[in-house]
């Protein structure tokens, strides 16, 4: 029976709430406090913006990508990146303004059959904003053909991040890859969130043998080496399935392994608050069991769950990348960052065309942004601590 003499919170005497009044802090809800705290975490704020931009890119990939990600051109295999230029000097020696890239001068080595590319300073391909491109369906149903930027002449070579083995535009492919790579993270996390909250919640709230059983299951799952497991499961997927189905199954596989962390987190939260006085008070107030769990207990760890989920997304992205890289995840023609990196498996290809590594950079940016954002959210999740 300790007497809590709280010397840390310098509140005024009992009936003088005016100090709190004056600051307007008294009506601030939990979410508002969290927002205040989150706002002070500059890196997390910036990462939040980056994450938002990444998702906008994924949604509007068709508008942003200058060309079709699957359009190939044997003439431009392994074409190096072109430089986007603002101005040029014309024949008369005058400086002219105009966004453009230079066309390639291609030479084919007759003995090795290897193409070498030079940029042709004379031959300019004008680049513009809001140009016509190949027709597509925006968001899957709005027919459109406008591109944010691209060559003014449809079909002109335009490879600002270079081209791959089949002469496909890396820039467009990375943009389209964001769609799959970033969404597999979300879908996978929601699946594992569901499993984690349900199983972790049961484990923590009821305790006893159920708790023991679920905890041993978690330990068992965590003890399985993941890559062989994935390989085994992926081998079980029939080859005849369409790529989208494969994609869904892969997601399910990743989340079947991924829920364990979240499950433990949720269990811990339940354990720590189920004997708290305010939960006991809710019971005495006649609240039913679902109401105690959903209305009284859940809000106090919801914010932590959100933070944990944000931190789980990058591991899902990395898992997809790793699986696809190993050739057991997504397969062409699906475009994802992992599939794109498969191209970079060949050392010789990387030496001659280092721009094939660009999707790896995209993965790094996305993962870092999610991690920083998650860190900020986790710190903000408990607005009452310091």
């Amino acid at each position: 029976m300790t007497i809590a003499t709280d010397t840390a919170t310098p509140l005024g005497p009992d009936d003088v709430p005016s100090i709190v009044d004056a600051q307007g802090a008294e009506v601030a809800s939990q979410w508002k406090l969290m927002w205040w705290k989150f706002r002070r975490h500059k890196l997390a704020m910036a990462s939040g913006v980056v994450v938002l931009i990444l998702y906008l890119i994924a949604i509007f990939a068709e508008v942003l990508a200058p060309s079709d990600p699957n359009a190939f051109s044997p003439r431009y295999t392994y074409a190096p990146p072109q430089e986007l230029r603002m101005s040029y000097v014309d024949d008369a020696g005058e400086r002219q303004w105009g966004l453009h890239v230079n066309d390639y001068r291609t030479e084919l080595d007759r003995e090795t059959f290897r193409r070498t590319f030079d940029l042709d300073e004379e031959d300019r391909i004008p680049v513009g904003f809001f140009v016509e491109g190949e027709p597509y369906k925006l968001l899957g149903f709005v027919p459109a053909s406008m591109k944010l930027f691209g060559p003014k002449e449809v079909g002109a070579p335009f490879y600002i991040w270079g081209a791959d083995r089949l002469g496909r535009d890396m820039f467009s492919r990375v943009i389209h890859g964001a769609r799959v790579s970033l969404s597999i993270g979300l879908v996978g996390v929601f699946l594992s969130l569901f499993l984690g909250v349900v199983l972790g919640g049961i484990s923590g709230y009821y305790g006893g043998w159920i708790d023991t059983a679920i905890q041993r299951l978690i330990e068992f799952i965590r003890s399985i080496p993941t890559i062989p497991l994935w390989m085994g499961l992926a081998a079980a997927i029939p080859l005849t399935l369409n790529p989208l189905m494969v994609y869904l199954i892969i997601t399910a596989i990743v989340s079947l392994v991924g829920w364990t962390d979240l499950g433990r987190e949720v269990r811990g939260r339940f354990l720590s608050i189920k004997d708290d006085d305010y939960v006991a008070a809710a019971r005495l107030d006649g609240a039913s069991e679902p109401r105690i769990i959903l209305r009284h207990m859940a809000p106090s760890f919801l914010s932590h769950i959100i933070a944990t989920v944000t931190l789980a997304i990058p591991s899902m992205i990395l898992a997809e990348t790793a699986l696809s890289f190993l050739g057991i995840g997504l397969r062409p023609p699906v475009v994802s960052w992992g599939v794109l990196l498969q191209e970079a498996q060949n050392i010789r290809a990387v030496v001659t065309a280092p721009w094939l590594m660009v999707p790896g950079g995209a993965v790094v940016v996305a993962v870092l942004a999610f991690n920083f954002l998650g860190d900020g959210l986790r710190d903000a999740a408990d607005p009452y601590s310091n």
Partner: protein
Amino acid sequence: MNRGHVIPIDPDAVLTVRSMKTEFALRTHTLKAVDDVSFTLKRGKTLCIVGESGSGKSVTARSILRIVPEPGTITGGEVILHREDGDVALHTLGDRSKEIRAIRGADIAMIFQEPMSSLSPVHTIGFQIDESLRLHTDLDKKARRARIVELLERVEIPDAARTADRYPFEYSGGMRQRAMIAMALACNPKVLIADEPTTALDVTTQAEILDLIQELQDEYGMAVMFITHDMGVVAEIADEVAVMYRGQHVETGGVEEIFANPHEDYTKMLIGSAVRLEEPSPIKIAMQAKVAALATRQPVLEVRDLVKQFKSKHTMLGKLVSTGVRAVDGVGLDLLPGETLGIVGESGSGKTTLGRCIMRMHEPTSGSILYRGQGADTEVMSLDKKGLRDFHADVRMIFQDPYASLNPRMTVEQLVAEPLRNRKLAAPTEIRDRVADLLVRVGLKPDHMERYPHAFSGGQRQRIGIARALAPNPKVIIADEATSALDVSLRSQILDLLLEFQRELDLSFIFISHDISTVRYFCDRVAVMYRGELVEIGNAREVCDNPTHAYTKALLSAVPRPDPTRRRIANRHRYVAAETNNMSNGASA
């Protein structure tokens, strides 16, 4: 000792503090935790720094040793330690400098409120005392060991040579605090700073620790700076008193002078609220006739032979890990309508378990609890889930900790309306009005409804808790240490509020407390519990003034009184049975 003026150096002065200032930079403003505080500590004398929570008394102590927690900074003032080899200006030393580290623990030692969290759980007590000897002396290993045993013997730890090799969790609360004191004494400090060292302890243990500090002070001639919020403790041990309020030094003086002629209003209020609790509440006295009339009726609650046995624990192979404890051992009591029954006892006496068993928050092992509500009598022990829900609307609970018992994610309206909503006691359209009405009755404003608990002070939160308890118009309220977490000036306010409700609504209270003074103030009858058993029950006045059981006598005589002219801890009753089981009763209830 006027603040701001230069203090003439007293030959007995050991530590002089002049206009010390410590500030905390908060999000919205700068908090002056210590604002221009000056005092002098003298050889062999005790200065009590007294104030309520948030008055800056702990920060003052920490500022002397330069261990202010983040984001606090010491912004001004002088701290001078007078040693035989000359004065040392502590305020000029860096927070992590070698010089200040040499002083901490050697010249100035500190003991804290919570001995469990100030001791390392993974090292033996002996090792932890040894550490300060190794840092500050050049004794060899054998000499240090001898010194450790000597120190532990000095603080009256039984079988010191063996207990030195035990870990803090094997010690009881009182023994831990003794070990902390032994550690503090290791290098014969000139100044001992004690920051609420007895607040977490039972009154009988508190009395022993206070005794010990006083004895050691007489022996070694240390200056003691004793921080407390309890005017009773001040009256018992202080030579001089410094009163603090919101970081400012309100008043200083000799202890008898302060108690006899306080100058400042705040000091008067502090002493007044402590003295007030020495007598029954005026409201209580006015109600006596009514209580007597009601008492002739049948009891509203009848508890018979209630037993709560905690299960013994076995390992998977069936080996006994711990034997079950009988936390409540055959308790029987009646609660009359409209009366207040106090249950007092120290930690581990089973009083909280008893309260929770009556609510069936803990499942009693055996016994019977008869509740006489409207109409039919109910046997609480045989109620099913639904029946228990109805029972919980009639018999309510107020919790000890006003911070932990209110869900921080719900507004005051949601909190208070919860029992109404769950039991459909009010139509959804009426709920707001009912809540507003309840808030007004507990002394809050209806426009506080939209706020969250963190915007309220401890006393206000306890008022919210009371409003929640009252919402379904209960018959009985079980208040478990409802005022223990509050400052003394708020205690009588909250108790008076409860008494007002009792007068209006004919409520019965079971008031569980370790604090005998609040019982005297608030209760009609009192039951004394010791190790799960009821040792004495009777009229509150009679039990408090003429206790019959030896344990009650010991308990009562250990309570410090806010009257420096009648110190009594030194010649108090001791209850021998309490001493024998020191090692095992460390866990608090």
